[in-house]
C-alpha cells in the first residue's frame, strides 16, 4: 500500500510505519514464547526463545530506525506489565533483573543490523548483519549482566567477570544457527515485503 503524497507530507510518521513497529513488537512476544504453544525446540530441557531472532528480523525487515523503535516498544510494554518477555515474564521488576540487558540490547542490534543491510542488501550482507547482531547481543547483554549484578547485589567477591561469561555461553551455538537462518529468512521476506529499499548487485530493487 502506498500513502498519498499529502499524508506523507503532513505527518512524520505514516500510520503504516507506526503499525509495523507495533506489530513487530507483538511478534517478538510470540517469538519469546513460541515454545509455549507447542513443546518443540526444547533442547536439553531448556526451551529455546526466538527473542534475539526476532530482534534481528526487526532490524533486517523494518530497517534501522523502525527496527530499533519496534524493540523499544517491546521493552516498554514488557516493563508496563504485559507478559511479553520469555516465559510470559513482564512487569517493572524485569528492570532489576540482571538479564534485562539482553532486552535493552535488542534496540541496539536491530539498529545495527538494519544499518548494515541498508547500505548493501545482498544475501551475504543479510547474514553478516545477523551474525554481527548476535555478537553485539552477547557483548552488551553479558556486560550489562555483570554491571547489574554488581550494582544490585554489590558483587560478592566470589563473582568474577569471567563467571558472567561462563554463565551466558551455553546457548551460543544455537544462537549462531538462528542468526544465519534469520539472515536468509529476512532476505527472502524483504524481497516480498519491500519495506526498506535494498541495494543488491543488480541495482536497487525498488
Amino acid at each position, binding site marked *: 500500500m502506498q500513502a498519498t503524497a499529502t499524508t506523507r507530507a503532513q*505527518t512524520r510518521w505514516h500510520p503504516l510505519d*507506526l503499525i509495523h513497529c507495533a506489530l513487530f513488537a*507483538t511478534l517478538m512476544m510470540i517469538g519469546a514464547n513460541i515454545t509455549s504453544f*507447542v513443546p518443540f525446540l526444547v533442547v536439553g530441557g531448556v526451551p529455546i526463545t526466538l527473542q534475539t531472532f526476532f530482534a534481528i528480523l526487526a532490524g533486517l525487515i523494518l530497517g534501522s530506525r523502525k527496527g530499533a523503535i519496534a524493540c523499544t*516498544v517491546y521493552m516498554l510494554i514488557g516493563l508496563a506489565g504485559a507478559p511479553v518477555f520469555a516465559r510470559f515474564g513482564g512487569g517493572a*521488576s524485569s*528492570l532489576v533483573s540482571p538479564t534485562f540487558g539482553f532486552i535493552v540490547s535488542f534496540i541496539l542490534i536491530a539498529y545495527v543490523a538494519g544499518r548494515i543491510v541498508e547500505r548493501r542488501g545482498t544475501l551475504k550482507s543479510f547474514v553478516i548483519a545477523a551474525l554481527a547482531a548476535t555478537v553485539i547481543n552477547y557483548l552488551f547483554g553479558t556486560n550489562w549482566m555483570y554491571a547489574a549484578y554488581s550494582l*544490585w547485589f554489590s558483587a*560478592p567477591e566470589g563473582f568474577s567477570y569471567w563467571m558472567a561469561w561462563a554463565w551466558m555461553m551455553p546457548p551460543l551455538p544455537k544462537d549462531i544457527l538462528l542468526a544465519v537462518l534469520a539472515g536468509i529468512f529476512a532476505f527472502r521476506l524483504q524481497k516480498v*515485503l519491500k519495506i526498506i529499499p535494498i541495494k543488491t548487485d543488480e541495482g536497487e530493487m525498488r
Partner: protein
Amino acid sequence: MMEKMVFGRYIPGDSFVHRLDPRSKLIFVFIFIAAVFLANSTVSYALLLAFTLMSIFASKVRIGFLIGGLKPVMFLIAFTFLLHIFFTKEGDLLFELGFLKIYEEGLRQGIYISVRFLVLVLMTSLLTLTTSPISITDGLEVLLNPLKKVKFPVHELALMMSISLRFIPTLMDETDKILKAQLARGSDISSGTMKERIQAVVPLLVPLFVSAFKRAEDLAVAMEVRGYRGGEGRTRYRQLKWDWRDTTALLILLAVIVALWFLRG
C-alpha cells in the same frame, strides 16, 4: 495459557494504591529504586522492608500473587546470599564445619543484599500489579512529553504501545491456528536434530508474518480514512487525574527518604 494473557500482571482492585494516578506511581517507583541505595545499616534496611510491606498492605494485593512473581528471582537471591556468606571473610567467626567458615560480616552482607533486592522486586512488581499496561502507557506518554522538544516521538511511541498491547491476544490466536494447521498437514516439528528443528520454524513464521503484515495494512488504511494525523490536537478517552492521594504518596516517600538519610550508619 490464554487466561494468563488477558490482564498480564495486572490485578484489578479498588485500593489506595490502585486509585493512584499512573504518573505518580511511575515517579514513585523510579525515586524508590534510587532511594534503596541509601540504606546501609540494619535500621535503614528494616525501614525499607517495613515501608514495602506497608505499601503491599495498602494495595490489598494478595500475597500469593507477589510470591508468584518472586519465583524467578528466588534462585538469584539465594545464590547471592550464599556467595556473600562463603566469600566475605570479615568480622567474628560464627560457624565452622571443615572448610566451611561463616563470618559475621558475610552473614550481615548476605542479609542486607537479599533484603535490598527483595524490596526492589516487590515494589516494582507492585507497580505492575496495581496498574494496567494501558494506564502505564498513558502515564508514560504524559511524563515523557518534555522529550518532544528534542523531537523524540513520544506520542507515536505511546500509540505503538497501545496497538501492540491490543494485538497480543490476536496474534497469539493466529499463531495457535497456524500451528494447528501445520500439524494437521503432518508437519513434524518436535523431532530431528537441532538444525532440523530450527528450520521447522520457517513454515510457522511465514504465515504468521504474512497475516501480521496484512493486518498492519488493514489497520493503516482504517487509520488513514479516519484522518489520523499524529498527536496534534488529539483528544483522549481516558483522562488522567492527579488528586490528593498522589501528593500524599509522594510526600510519604519523601519522608521515608529523609528518614533513611538520618538512619544511615
